[in-house]
């Protein structure tokens, strides 16, 4: 499979990424100018945590942002919901 080099990607996508950062910055400015207090907003906290992921040194940023914005999975959900298991192996 053809893979672009890092230099190719930054050349191709710098302006696109720049525009996205500006959109985010303008959204934060809009919030700043608006009346009302959202300091305790869960959505604002999530956005802030998401932006921290963008700035840290770890990889897998898209996946980590997705998981940050997701409800947690509980492996024991079937028992908690009392769902009838369908394991019919051997039947």
């Amino acid at each position: 499979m053809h893979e672009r080099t890092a230099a190719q990607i930054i050349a191709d996508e710098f302006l696109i990424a720049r525009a996205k950062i500006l959109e985010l910055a303008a959204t934060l400015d809009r919030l700043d100018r608006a009346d009302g207090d959202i300091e305790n907003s869960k959505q604002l906290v999530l956005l802030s945590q998401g932006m921290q992921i963008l700035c840290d040194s770890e990889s897998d940023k898209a996946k980590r942002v997705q998981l940050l914005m997701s409800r947690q999975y509980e492996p024991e959900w079937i028992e908690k919901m009392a769902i009838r298991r369908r394991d019919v192996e051997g039947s």
Partner: protein
Amino acid sequence: MEYIDPHLHMVSRTTDDYETLARMGCVAISEPAFWAGFDRGSVDSFRDYFRQLTDFEPKRAAQYGISHYTWLCINAKEAENVTLSREVIAMIPEFLDAKNVLGIGEIGLNKNTRNEATIFLEHLDLAVKYNQQILIHTPHLEDKYQGTRMILDMLMGDSRINRSRVLVDHVEEHTIEHVLENGFWAGMTLYPVSKCTPQRAADMIERYGPERLMANSAGDWGPSKPTAIPDLIMEMKKRGHSKELIRRVVYENPKTFFSQSKPFVHG
């Protein structure tokens, strides 16, 4: 380039859209049954909808040289009405011999509730009983990760299910690995805001390879773009990917998957 859109709700689109799709290279569509934007009141509403999917839409598509296939179910949003869901599931076999029905779908979860899970399992029973392929809807946004894991638990807890005959749709960066590594097919939905962009889909193809992976527009009555697959083709071309790789994702893979159902005859 010729392509197949494996997930497109044409009942919500105009005839002009069929013409545009044909001009852009679309040769076949598969249309899963879904939510109409409101909860339907009776089993007869679904019977009429299934007539539309199995009779009217194939004729409309054929005017533009597009093959139309479909999947039948009651969707997860309406599964909270368990009584109606069971009536619909009991009625579905009336349509399973229609010449464009590929299987049961798009079944799945929406808000990951007990009723949704119960009706999902009853759809699995139906698919197994009639030897049907399965197309699965995974939830949106914050519910997707939890719901996808729950769906996989139910599928993998049932030894009757042939994983190579199940397509799990709307995968994103945090769910694709779970789907592929367990032997299922995966679909990436190119959908503004709430799902995946052509750029992120191309990233996932680069990262996970083309094996058992396809892309769809899931065009419907909401903000969506029925011609999103040509956008993915363009993105992959811009990145320098080969025609063979692109064709594998947008044509060969859906063809291979659908060919496991008898009615699929394209190509």
